[in-house]
């Protein structure tokens, strides 16, 4: 009996303690204006934290609470359901943005002063996926897809010049393979990485108007995408053996260590690869999809766009923070730390690792990710991982391509409701 009482006393004091700490957390912030800042990318949190710290110094009456959960989509969706979205949101130009935009809870950014400083082609990427063609988020950072390659590995294989045509790419791959270096490291265990390859092929081979026709059932994957899938499968033939079982983390590691020479994905591969080997000498070039080098474009999309909630109680303060983030100084900081490209005019990416494509980006000579226009429930990665499994199982390419594209069509059809 006595033991029980003691236990009860201990737990009671524990409850009290937790209550106090929880309550304290709330009360200390209540005097200030507190803004919720939500980010869909977990890995840029440290950079945001730096910006928040200097902003709070300048504006002692404003406190910013950063939240950057790993499964941002789910959290955002439940926030929407709760009807209480964060004051400021940093989202990619993708489904996450589309969902909140469609719900009509965002402030129109087109009139803001800082918007004028952003590159028009990136503004268009936002408006093109917005309901009513509105600019409900201002583009902030963009990413660029291409081929991240290990310079040392290329050197070892005796390759001196990065390929500019498809045939050159395949030839280089053959050379690398002969030297015992994996040409392409494809980390398809993490299914999202399949899109890194597919998007680049697709954006360079299929016109941007195709998706509209597909949505209206005027065309199909089967009728259009055979060449794309052929190249997709050809690339995978030069991948490491267990490419369906390699995780993104392990893939970037192999790339950094020079076991593999190339990874077809975005600029964000570079900082990740460097976590496992700091000294890795990496650069990027655009994926030479076509044999006519002039037709090859960098696939680039909105990595981060900033949006403000219509229902925010502190809209002015929120806008102030967005404006702060949009300043050249902060945009540069972001570029430097995240190896990304800015949507803001005049803020260039000068990192050596990215010089292979930064020129294209600065020119604005880019195409957007096709999957940003896919309907909500359509998951192309599911189709592509199945394709990969089919291949490793030994299915013939012709059958595999037909099967995969048929599956893509039926999945598209069931997602393309309303």
């Amino acid at each position, binding site marked *: 009996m006595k033991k029980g009482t003691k236990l009860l006393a201990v737990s009671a004091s524990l409850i009290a303690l937790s209550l106090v700490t*929880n309550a304290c957390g709330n009360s200390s912030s209540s005097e200030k204006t507190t803004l919720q800042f939500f980010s869909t990318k977990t*890995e840029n949190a440290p950079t945001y934290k730096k910006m928040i710290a200097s902003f709070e110094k300048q504006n002692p009456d404003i406190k910013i*609470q950063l939240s950057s959960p790993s499964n941002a989509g789910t959290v955002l969706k439940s926030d929407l359901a*709760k*009807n209480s979205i964060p004051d400021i949101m940093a989202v990619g130009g993708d489904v996450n943005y589309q969902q909140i935009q469609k719900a009509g809870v965002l402030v129109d950014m087109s009139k803001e002063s800082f918007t004028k400083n952003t590159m028009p082609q990136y503004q268009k990427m936002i408006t093109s996926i917005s309901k009513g063609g509105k600019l409900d988020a201002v583009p902030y950072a963009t990413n660029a897809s291409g081929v991240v390659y290990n310079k040392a590995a290329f050197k070892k294989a005796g390759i001196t010049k990065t390929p500019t045509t498809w045939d050159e790419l395949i030839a280089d791959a053959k050379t690398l393979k002969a030297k015992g270096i994996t040409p392409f490291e494809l980390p398809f265990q993490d299914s999202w990485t399949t899109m890194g390859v597919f998007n680049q092929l697709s954006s360079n081979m299929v016109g941007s108007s195709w998706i509209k026709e597909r949505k209206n059932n005027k065309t199909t994957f089967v009728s259009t995408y055979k060449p794309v899938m052929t190249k997709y499968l050809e690339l995978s033939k030069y991948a490491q053996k267990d490419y369906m079982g390699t995780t993104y983390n392990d893939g970037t*590691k192999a790339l950094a260590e020079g076991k593999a020479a190339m990874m077809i994905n975005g600029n964000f591969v570079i900082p990740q690869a460097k976590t496992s080997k700091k000294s890795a000498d990496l650069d990027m070039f655009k994926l030479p999809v076509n044999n006519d080098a002039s037709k090859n474009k960098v696939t680039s999309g909105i990595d981060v766009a900033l949006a403000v909630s219509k229902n925010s109680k502190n809209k002015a303060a929120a806008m102030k923070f967005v404006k702060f983030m949009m300043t050249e100084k902060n945009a540069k900081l972001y570029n430097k730390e995240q190896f990304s490209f800015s949507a803001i005019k005049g803020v260039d990416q000068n990192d050596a690792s990215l010089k292979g494509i930064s020129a294209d980006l600065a020119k604005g000579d880019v195409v957007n990710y096709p999957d940003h226009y896919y309907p909500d429930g359509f998951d192309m990665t599911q189709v592509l991982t199945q394709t990969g499994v089919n291949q490793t199982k030994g299915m013939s390419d012709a059958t595999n391509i037909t099967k995969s594209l048929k599956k893509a069509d039926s999945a598209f059809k069931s997602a393309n409701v309303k």
Partner: protein
Amino acid sequence: MQANADLNNNTPAPRKSKKRKKKVNWTLTSVMMVLAIFAILGPLYITVVIALKDPSQMTNVLSLPKQIHWENFKNAWQMTNFPKMFLNTLFITVVNVIFTIFTNSMAAYVITRYRLKNKFFNMMYYYFISAMFIPFNVIMLPLVKEVSAFHMDNIIGITFLYIVFGLPQNIFLYSGFVKEIPTALEEAAEMDGAKPMQIFFKVIFPLMKPMHATVAILSFMWTWNDFLMPLVLLSNPDQQTLQLAQYVFQGQFSTQYNLAFASYVLVLLPVLIMYVFFQKYIIAGVTSGSVK
């Protein structure tokens, strides 16, 4: 009418005293031992070893670390905001266990005792039992909406939900036990002048101790290891739990095994420590809870 089992007559049935010294089967012992070490402890060994290494030592995963990298724990500790998450999780778990035991045992007692005499309580019994079959997925999104309308999307709110949501299973667990308690005990207490609340808390509640242990363990495990409910309900980063924090390491663009595994160890450790100390009670509790 008075066919109740006699709780007082619980002198253990005379043990079959033919405990002849049986010969130990060493072959079987070694088979079971080897299986336990490799199959069960193996994955745990891997977890700990990885947590203690740095990426450069990962070439031979199974080897013991040449150099122990405690800073993995330090980094994981910081990256997951461990102290805060730990306190949050502890708060949810402890408060849930305490309140579950008091409120759920009370409801289970009354429902079990009176369900054969009273249609209302019988109905309640079937109501709760059938609720056991409702997958959480079905109620997830409507729940999120409702909970935020009540401003309960925080630690205290979720704790409250755990207490309420545990009811069906706990009523199921307690009811088997309550049936075994002779009604004469309550009648004796009634004759002694006790009011219903006094009867429950002074006579019945202490008797339910073995089942309290079971319920406490199961509730603890549930809340400590749950992540779907905190995931959808707790959006404020200061209000999250340890399991949720593990997701930090599963972000799209970064997975650092050594840190992640150090963090897993940090989450598993409290449970393991508890298991080492209370292993006997936990095993006995879970068995009695499920077999009754």
